[in-house]
């Protein structure tokens, strides 16, 4: 269980996150959505302990700030939006950096297994800096997966925090990565992902947190949060949510007529 209560983040004198209450359950994919600048990434960075904040965070009953870095690394992995590397590491060497927490280090072949999982089998000796943006993002996902390869450990769920995991990917790899994310949750792990694509969110998320203006507007199942009357004021544009007979809601911006410039 991930429980965040009354999270407030200030950068300088500006309050960029105000009193956010956020919940995520293991076994579920929890998406954070909202327009640019709404505080999605800030919330994620507060949840991972990267930003100092007011309020209370409990990850599996632990205060993340009180755990030693290597203990926390065995409990959760974090995938940033983009990770430029300073030195000419190969793809395999980048993935191996995920093993430094040490929990999975005893497992042989984890590096090629993790690369194969993200569709990059055989990429081991390729220089990271020469890969495309989407390939780099998947190498980094492989690194984070290698860090917490088993979705549960010692009877406790492990957590994957993802900041726009599919923003640099083509549609085929978007679906592949979301499938990996879904499988991790189905195997008992917890997923918290900042998402831009509301359709992918509707397809894969169990719970959605909608952010706007540094506040949480709503959190709940897709059908309760992905609604015209919540999304349109949050994104400041007319949006129409539709429903397929079997698969839940989907969005077509063109369904709401000509886009009015705000």
């Amino acid at each position, binding site marked *: 269980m991930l429980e965040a209560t009354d999270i407030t983040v200030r*950068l300088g004198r500006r309050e960029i996150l105000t009193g956010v209450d956020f919940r995520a359950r293991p076994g579920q994919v929890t998406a954070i959505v909202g327009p640019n600048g709404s505080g999605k990434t800030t919330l994620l*960075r507060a949840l*991972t*302990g*990267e930003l100092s904040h007011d309020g209370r965070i409990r990850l599996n009953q632990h205060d993340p700030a009180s755990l*030693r*870095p*290597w*203990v*926390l*690394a*065995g409990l*959760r*992995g*974090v995938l*940033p939006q983009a*990770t*430029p*590397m*300073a*030195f*000419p*590491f*190969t793809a*395999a*060497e*980048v993935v191996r*950096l*995920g*093993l*430094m*927490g*040490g*929990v999975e*280090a*005893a*497992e*042989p072949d*984890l*590096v*090629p297994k993790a690369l194969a999982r993200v569709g990059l089998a055989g990429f*081991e*000796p390729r220089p990271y*800096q020469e890969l495309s943006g989407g390939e780099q993002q998947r190498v980094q996902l492989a*690194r984070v997966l290698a*860090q917490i390869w088993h979705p549960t450990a*010692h009877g406790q769920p492990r957590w994957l925090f993802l900041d726009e995991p599919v923003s640099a990917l083509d549609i085929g790899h978007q679906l592949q990565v979301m499938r990996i994310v879904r499988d991790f949750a189905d195997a008992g792990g917890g997923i918290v992902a900042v998402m831009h694509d509301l359709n992918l969110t509707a397809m894969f998320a169990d719970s959605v947190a909608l952010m706007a203006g540094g506040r949480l507007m709503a959190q709940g199942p897709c059908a309760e949060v992905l609604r015209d009357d919540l999304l349109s004021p949050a994104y400041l544009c007319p949006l129409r949510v539709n429903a397929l007979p079997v698969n839940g809601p989907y969005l077509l911006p063109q369904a709401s007529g000509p886009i009015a410039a705000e």
Partner: protein
Amino acid sequence: MVALPHEVAGPAPHWDRTPRAWRLTALLVLALAVMSAASLAVGAAGTSPWAVLADIMAGREVALADRVVLFEIRLPRLAMGALVGAALAVSGAVMQGLFRNPLADPGLVGVSAGAGLGAIAAIVLGGLLPAGIAGVLGYHLVPVAAFAGGWATTLVLYGIATRRGQTSVATMLLGGIALGALAGALSGILVYIADDAQLRDLTFWGLGSLAGATWTKLAAAAPLMILALVAAPMLARGLNGLSLGEAAAAHVGIPVQRLKTVAILTVAGATGAAVAVSGGIGFVGIVVPHLLRLATGPDHRPLLVNAALLGAALLIGADMIARSLIAPAELPIGIVTAILGGPVFLWILLRRRGSLGF
């Protein structure tokens, strides 16, 4: 709850460059041994270490001149060259890892200038210290002052370049240049007010040379350099993690703040001590790590060990050139490393100018 980190067992997979880097370590040990032996044999006096060794083995009396040349001149000089070379190369590698920038170097970003200012201040103003303090520090005064100067510069530089936990590379380089210029100007003022005897000391010190190496000087500077050389390999895993960026390094389990503190102490200690005893020896810190990364990749675990070995071997070699090229006179070693290092540095720039990334 968490098992201790350890290596994956079994044979190394084909993509793993690290075993190759460790084989290079063995080669470098050999190279260092050969260089050391050659360094003991080469010199203005015709002393042969082998003849002296044979005399000692046979229980014969060693000629006084040979004993002095070998044990009071060449041996401390060899040890000093090895330590300074290793310290400079490792400082460069740690600095590059810390700033996540392949062009960082204590010389380039003003840390050496700060250490130099400390050393010059100690030489010029040391006489003004209360006799008690001067007496306690004695021979240690100059290295301690250089250490403090290097350390202070590193801390100020890090403070300037770091905002909200993010270190800006551009700010660091520009700030380092500014700090270096400032330290140079203050050094200039001190040189201006120095008396003739102090000027003589300063000139010899500033040219960069191992000529003044004695066991006493070595005893003063060696502990700091040895401490830094021992500490550096322990930073290797952390520096590997840091190449992902500070936040991501913390997420894979690196205690980032502690890593930065130890790395800064290591660089300041090693650079301060090296500059104090040998003056301004450039390019070792930037050329050695680069050559090794090109050869065997950026993994800091072998890199820091290999940098120490290659730095030591190179500086011993440069010192041999410095003292044999115009024997019996000597070139300042700083000139030799710059003449060798400058073109290599340019070659790296030309090779990589498309992919420097900043």
